[in-house]
């Protein structure tokens, strides 16, 4: 494995404890030694909920789940005088290529719990739910253990940290549907219904879980809170850009030397991130980049800053922060097919364009990949994408259309070559190693290429291992 040249450095905020104490960052003793829960204790003991919301607003922290909505603003949508309210943690990280929340919760579950306590205090919610992706066996065991420890310490339960504020956290494991990461589908699933997005309005802040005001935040967003509240808004804003302040954990994978999670200030260039990931795998030439999860339109150059605005200007998006680098051994028809198949499989079936559009696109892509494409198929695929985009019930359909359109548009010649040649020009074994699908299948970066540099533990105990301690 090539050595890192150390020219580019990470900035650890969310991953600080995990990276500083890789042996025991998730244990209670380490957390307490490391001033864990001090931030929540200070906030709940000494700050008003309004001041807490204001501080988060001032920091400019934006949601790390994909949409990038300002967190403090989201909290302030909760109507006054309506109780009970709920905080729901979206830990259903399912975007192909994304594995940051997994590591954040596995490595530092107490930081997440502390963040939940701060958010619950700010929103005056006495119950929080963690909707945990079903496949996260190790993570859910560690979270479960950590929640138990927090109760024992008086950090959860009645009168937490000696205040008169009560907080319970309920950990719920999902059953493996990508759509349940969409916040309103998550709520339906949590309530025990079929996981399908809800009609909005009403928005979850007004009528969410069980019809009550609900704040839904991503794991990484909440895990940022303890450090943010201890150090203040200005400290946080020293990183990033004006509109995208702070640091962000990027899940980097694909045909690179050191896949893994890297925390860098927003606005860092994509080239630097590739460098952190150890550069392209030997012999490979960079061909395409998915900069923000499978839904994000492709880039072909690393000459872009990794923040919400710059990526939007480049015609793509930051999304969940999953960056997949693909080299010239990648068949882009195959890439489009695998990605679209993923969205087809994960479509909930509620609305027509997503359900039928993804079905149709998969059929067409399969034909092209198997050498039975027709000259009109590329335009047809673009039409299908247009037919889904902006017309589906929830963003899943939009995401499917963006990925599809971008593959066809950016690599149209390659599609046409498939049609003209009547075959796929790539070797079959090469075609199996496409980065975009790895995260979605739960393999993380560990599933492909070289071993990850740090962070990802391969869970040897299996999904239902009985060892609940998480050690």
């Amino acid at each position, binding site marked *: 494995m090539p050595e890192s040249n150390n020219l580019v450095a990470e900035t650890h905020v969310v991953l600080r404890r995990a990276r500083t104490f890789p042996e025991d960052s998730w244990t209670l003793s380490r957390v307490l030694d490391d001033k864990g829960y001090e931030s929540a204790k200070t906030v709940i003991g000494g700050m008003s909920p309004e001041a807490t919301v204001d501080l988060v607003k001032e920091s400019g922290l934006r949601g790390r789940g994909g949409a990038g909505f300002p967190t403090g603003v989201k909290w302030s949508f909760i109507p006054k005088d309506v109780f009970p309210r709920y905080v729901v943690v979206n830990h259903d990280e399912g975007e192909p290529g994304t594995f940051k929340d997994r590591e954040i919760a596995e490595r530092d579950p107490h930081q997440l719990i502390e963040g939940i306590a701060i958010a619950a205090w700010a929103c005056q919610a006495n119950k929080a739910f963690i909707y945990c992706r079903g496949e996260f066996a190790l993570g859910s065991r560690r979270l479960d253990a950590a929640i138990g420890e927090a109760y024992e310490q008086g950090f959860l339960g009645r009168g937490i940290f000696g205040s008169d504020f009560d907080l319970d956290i309920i950990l719920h494991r999902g059953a493996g549907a990508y759509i349940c990461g969409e916040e309103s589908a998550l709520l339906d699933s949590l309530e025990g219904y079929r996981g399908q997005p809800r009609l909005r309005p009403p928005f979850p802040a007004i009528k969410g879980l069980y019809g009550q005001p609900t704040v839904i935040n991503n794991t990484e967003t909440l895990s940022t809170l303890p450090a943010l509240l201890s150090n203040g808004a200005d400290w946080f804003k020293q990183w990033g850009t004006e509109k995208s302040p702070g640091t962000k954990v990027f899940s980097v994978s694909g045909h690179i030397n050191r896949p893994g999670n890297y925390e860098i200030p927003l606005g860092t260039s994509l080239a630097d991130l590739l460098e952190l990931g150890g550069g392209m795998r030997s012999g490979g030439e960079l061909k395409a980049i998915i900069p923000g999860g499978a839904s994000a339109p492709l880039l072909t150059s690393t000459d872009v800053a990794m923040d919400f605005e710059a990526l939007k200007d480049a015609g793509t998006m930051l999304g969940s922060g999953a960056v997949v680098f693909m080299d010239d051994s990648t068949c882009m028809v195959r890439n489009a097919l695998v990605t679209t198949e993923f969205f087809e499989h994960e479509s909930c079936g509620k609305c027509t364009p997503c359900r039928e559009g993804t079905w149709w696109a998969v059929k067409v892509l399969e034909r092209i990949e198997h050498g039975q494409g027709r000259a009109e198929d590329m335009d047809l695929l673009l039409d299908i994408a247009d037919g889904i985009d*902006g017309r589906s019930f929830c963003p899943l359909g939009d995401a499917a259309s963006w990925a599809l359109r971008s593959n066809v548009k950016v690599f149209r010649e390659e599609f046409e070559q498939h049609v003209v040649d009547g075959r796929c020009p790539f070797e079959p074994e090469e075609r199996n190693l496409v980065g975009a699908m790895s995260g979605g299948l739960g393999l993380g970066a560990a599933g492909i290429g070289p071993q990850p540099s740090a962070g990802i533990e391969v869970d040897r105990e299996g999904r239902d291992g009985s060892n609940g301690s998480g050690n």
Partner: protein
Amino acid sequence: MADLVNVTINGSQIQAEKGRMLIDVAEEMGIFVPRFCYHPGMKSVAVCRMCLVQIEGQRKLLPACATPVDDGMNVNTSDEQAVDAQQGMLEFLLINHPLDCPICDRGGECPLQDQTYRHGPGASRYVEPKRTYEKALEISDLVVLDRERCVLCWRCVRFCDEISGDRFIQLVDRGPGTQILTFSDEPFNSYFSGNTIQICPVGALTSLPYRFASRPWDLQTAPSVCAYCSVGCPITNESRSGQLVRCQALPNENVNDFWICDKGRFGYHYVSSEERLETPLVRKGDEFAPASWGEALQLAAEKLGGKERVGVIAGGHLTTEDAFGVSRLARSVIGTPHLDSRVQDAGAPYELFRSAGGVAGSTATLNDLEEAKTIWWVGPDPKESLPVLFLRLRKAVLDRGAHLTVVSPRRISLDEFADTVIRTSEADDGSVAGQIAEKSKGELEDPVVVCWGPAHPGRDERATVTAVVELARAHDSKVLVCPPHAGSQGLLDMGVHPLMEPGYADAALGGRDTRAILEGAAKGEIDTLLLLGVDPIADFPDAGLAQRALESKAFSIVVELFPTETALRADVVMPSAAYAERDGTFTNLERRLQKLERLMTPVGAARDPWKICTALAQAMGQEWKWHDLEDVWEDIRKTVPTHAGIRLEALKQQAPAPAPFYEPALSAQHGRAEGAMGGPGGQYPKGHRGGAPFQTGQNWPLSWELRAFEAKQRPGLIPAPGGLSATPAGGPDAPSRASEAAQPAAGTPPAEASSASTRPSGPPIDRDHSFVLYSGRLIYDEGAMVRRTAALRGIQAKPFVEMNEYDVKRLEVADGDEVVVSGNGVEARLRVVVADIGAGAVFVPYDQEGLRANRLMAGIDPVVEVKPG
């Protein structure tokens, strides 16, 4: 009044109530936004994405069904973007649709077909194999499911969830594999299942009885009113080659919303039954001989000359006009005060309600239920006997937040969402009236509607009704009186009652009620019985008495559809026309008059009962000239004060010329020249059919979506208060008449009341095994009409007996065991169902195959003995 906002749609401005959905507002302006999942009777889900429209200032197209109008909104439903979305969505919907339209029952009246022709692309670009499923699953005895045709609009799922509460149909699997399905071991056993067929926007759900019976364009259609219960749901009857092949709900948000029950929808075969009487019959010894009308009428007329030695009983399926004819014939021509229309509900004291609102019937409308904050229900299980009223009550409670109190000796469907359940039973000396009075003390949240219907044949409900009237008066509330049948209220209005003349006035001379008439016949005090549309042996809660009356020396004249038990014992039988063969009106339980239109000619020589009354009067030498319905109404207006001023014309449906089938402007946008459309669309009428959506005559093949739309463009076609339907004066609209009305007859016993007001004498009752007998009809029973309806034959419940769990233990039997139930010298072996019912009481359904519960009854308030089998 809600805020009004200004909205611009396709360039035209309109004022609309803020918050109404765009799709409705547009439709009112005459702009049809295509849709599949949207249904005005259910909540929007916005899943089909067909109704996407362009709204100025919005980045994306928005679904018109889920976008409330707001001030200054500028909407375009037919610009390039919206049309592109509509075409794209239809192309998506059609890629997996089998296009087996030529063999699909929906073909010709299919929303998917129609909207594809109006809004879709001309051709599909889909060349891949289509999604396939096993075809034509029979998910119940009435409904067939074809998942390949389904466009996943969720209408059926939402209907079962929101409207009926029978959650049998669900979404299964996900993504492109999503399908509608029932649970594998549970058929779609809902009393309202047929509605899912009617609202299905494709042919995914079809009717087993109607399957392959006709193409829509081969049907003759007539608007009518369901002839079963007193809710009076507006329906369409449809026939092919003279056979009635289909009934569907006509939407009327005042009455049935958009729904009818499966009994109303599928229970029409009897009209074309081979058992229909086609000619008058005259008894010759033990046999009947066919006779001419002249012969039969002459014979009957001779026997009807006995003045007060004649008794007249009319059944609940007669129209208002029949009722008026019967009333006039009895009082003015025959000269007898002995007439009644209460049979199954014999003795039900409707007349007492005059002291609450001046009418022997409802002062509340069905719409009042939805405004009510408090509803009291004292009556039968509405899901069994007044099914669409159950839906309205369910909506009032679950959607509108009314608080419901249910008074019943046994658990009924309403208990599920009642705030309070008062479990009454006369067995343990709990007086029903006392409990009602006790529990209704104090404040009830206004407005209050008190509902009452005769619940248990054979039981004296005088005290209960007095308590209900008291409750209504104490809380100044409206009452909803629910007589059992489609014609029941009209019969009361027209004075087919021993104590009331037409218009609820006290009868000059009190007459015998049904029981007393039958007793009179049995004892030789009545010489002639005139029975119209009534089968006392099957329906009267003392079958033995009815049989004795019919087998007595009294001469009996029976007007009937079928050779019923009663008709078989008659001396003269006259064939009656059935509802689909008739013009006329029914008056429903809220006293709304609704018009039936004739679809078919009566079988054989069958005649309308009011025409038979006219002919009888003429045969008796009276000058009585009624030739058509208008003649009858002229007299009704003159003699019945509550009906003065009602114009039959106002109840009738208009038939203006049809609008062009598609809007030329839209067709041009689609690049089609007017008239250049091929395929089935090309056969669609552009006037030559000459029919409006709900007009009598040749069916106009068009989906319900567009029918409703087209109909709204023609005022008066969709029933509305004062339009198709009207409530007689003195009713809900004029409660002030109450004070002027006749003094209540409460407490005044009939002049010649039945003598059997006590329990029958006979062998002493075995206390340990004696039970109070409650009975009541189930939806699918052995009634004369349902019995002759093939579609409903297989799904009737077998007779059973409901008992309290303590009584079951006491008798040392168990749920499912057989017991012997005996009463009136009749024994029946019945299966025990342990149920929530008062101790010391049993419930036996009134009329199921194998046991007519009226055979167990003798006298008023019958008891039975139950012993282990």
